[in-house]
């Protein structure tokens, strides 16, 4: 167990280092950072001064070590576009994105699990077919179009919900939350549903497929033969054994939620990190791009690590197989 965790951590560190290397390359070799900082009429001496001051004359490996050292402390330099420290910008935007992703993931799970179980158990019922067809439509609907449709229906035509922004937010320490005010909660609904829909269809189809697979196995037949109630068989035996792949995919999906949040945040003008990243791309604001990249990589690696550890909690078989040295 401990060896496994250590190996995983080691892998995670390698991934983080390689992503940092990419951001570092981005930072230093794509365009001249000095050019983006000084005005057009800066003299050669001024440029050289900044160059020395930033340590850009040092050998690349030394610069990389310094970059990683700063990144670990959360220092990514100044945004070219806004002239603010990148970490301040991100700290401002982080709560918005995390709240959005959290609510979207909750919606996706709470809706997808029952639907997946239902369509897996009653594969031939008309209702299942309706759900499945809808899910296929859901896969073909790009996120931004779902957002536009929801805005059109609920904000423009019906006027029930706000179409952009976070509404009123409350500061709790440095964290600004929209959960505590009615406007904040109302503003969260449309973007969260938009973000959740795609993941929802995916998780639902996955659970359905796994349920169908598991229901065919012998131990389910045996459980039925023992006279256990349907509920105990379906949920206690069958659903529980579908959880390993579901956890994997859901974990990966939460990662991609962070990325898809870029689209959702743009549609709803949600002041989160994705919006920040998109603006950074449009204005070639490299420090912000680099920081976002490292941060997203960190989220991915962290989620993967948690998912791997959750396997152990969910599936006792893994513990035995690993400890006998089977597999890799």
């Amino acid at each position, binding site marked *: 167990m401990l060896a496994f965790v250590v190996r995983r951590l080691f892998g995670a560190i390698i991934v983080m280092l390689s992503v940092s290397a990419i951001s570092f390359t981005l930072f230093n070799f794509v365009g001249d950072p000095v050019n983006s900082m000084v005005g057009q009429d800066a003299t050669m001496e001024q440029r050289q001064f900044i160059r020395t001051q930033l340590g850009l004359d040092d050998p690349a490996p030394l610069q990389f070590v310094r970059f990683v050292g700063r990144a670990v402390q959360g220092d990514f330099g100044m945004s070219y576009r806004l002239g603010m420290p990148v970490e301040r910008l991100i700290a401002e935007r982080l709560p918005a994105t995390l709240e959005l992703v959290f609510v979207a993931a909750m919606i996706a799970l709470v809706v997808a699990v029952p639907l997946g179980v239902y369509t897996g158990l009653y594969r031939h019922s008309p209702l299942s077919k309706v759900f499945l067809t809808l899910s*296929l439509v859901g896969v073909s609907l*790009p996120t931004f179009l779902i957002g*536009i449709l929801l805005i059109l229906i609920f904000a423009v035509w019906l006027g029930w919900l706000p179409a952009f922004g976070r509404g009123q937010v409350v500061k709790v320490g440095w964290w600004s939350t929209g959960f505590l005010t009615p406007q904040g909660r109302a503003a969260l609904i449309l973007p969260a549903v938009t973000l959740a829909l795609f993941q929802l269809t995916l998780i639902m189809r996955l659970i359905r497929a796994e349920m169908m697979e598991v229901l065919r196995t012998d131990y389910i037949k045996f459980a039925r033969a023992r006279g256990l109630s349907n509920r105990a068989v379906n949920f206690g035996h069958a659903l529980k054994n579908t959880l390993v792949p579901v956890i994997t995919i859901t974990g990966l999906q939460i990662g991609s939620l962070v990325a*898809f949040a870029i689209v959702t945040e*743009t549609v709803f003008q949600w002041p989160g990190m994705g919006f920040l990243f998109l603006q950074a791309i449009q204005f070639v604001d490299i420090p912000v*791009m680099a920081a976002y990249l490292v941060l*997203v990589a960190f989220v991915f690696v962290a989620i993967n690590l948690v998912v791997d550890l959750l396997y152990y909690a969910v599936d006792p078989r893994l513990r035995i197989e690993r400890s006998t040295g089977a597999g890799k």
Partner: protein
Amino acid sequence: MTAPAAPGSPPGLLRRIFDSDLWYSFTRSWITMGSGICVLLLVVGALGAPVLAPHDTFDPATLKLMDAFTPPVWVEGGNPTYLIGTDNQGRDMLSTIMFGMRISLLVGFAAVLFSLVLGVGLGLVAGYLGGTIDALIMRVADIKLAFPAILIALLVDGVSRAALPRDMHDQLALYVVVFAIGVSNWVSYARTVRGTVMVERGKDYVQAARVIGIHPAVIMVRHVLPNVMGPVLVIATLGLALAILTEATLSFLGVGVPPTQPSLGTLIRNGNDYLFSGEWWIAIFPGLTLVVLALSVNLLGDWLRDALNPKLR
């Protein structure tokens, strides 16, 4: 299987198509037929846009600003000249959609081709050679797979913006988008091909080819490749829908194709600005076209997967 043809008289291509299993399973499901017809109609509409479109939207002389924001015919104030209304510059929506679809399909096909060549090539090499090269390629694929395609595409676009001068970037924007989408989608090809190749590699015909001293590259391309094309075709079809949607998303975000060559995504982005003032048709009709296109291609891909899967016959 196909009816045995009389020796000496090879059956015509049409005969072969209509006799094939694939055609039989195609005609068995009205959903598949319907999506096939949809794709055909949309592709014909897109390719024939210069001839078929009621208005030439790229000719400034035909633009009438007076006609801007005309709603569709069935809404009050509609004008029969513009079947589904006009946009903010008085361009006919139907024509802009037909021209926009050309760009969407062009980028989609090009991106699929790019990722197909890249993915199949790497998959072949990894599966056939194995060893360190295999481990290296698959590790890169794993890392790539951890990041969503849209993020990679955005990043490629961002880097190209930083690396290229502005006017050059605008010229190359179309290629950058194709590259970005292609690079973000090659892994599924590589994995599938690698898996199949590893099975095929051990078979007798490959051994025989190797024994008579054929170069590995020739074995890979001439002998192994044809046997892995079935699954690749399925992935390419589903990948086409994905590529079209990714392009639309990028263009919607304003980092995709240049505004001078509007795709469906660009049109939706444009229409999004007029959603609140009630001109819903400017965004909704391109969006609808996009969904019908993607859904039909997806359904065709699903059918192809089932039809080519021998286990389900």
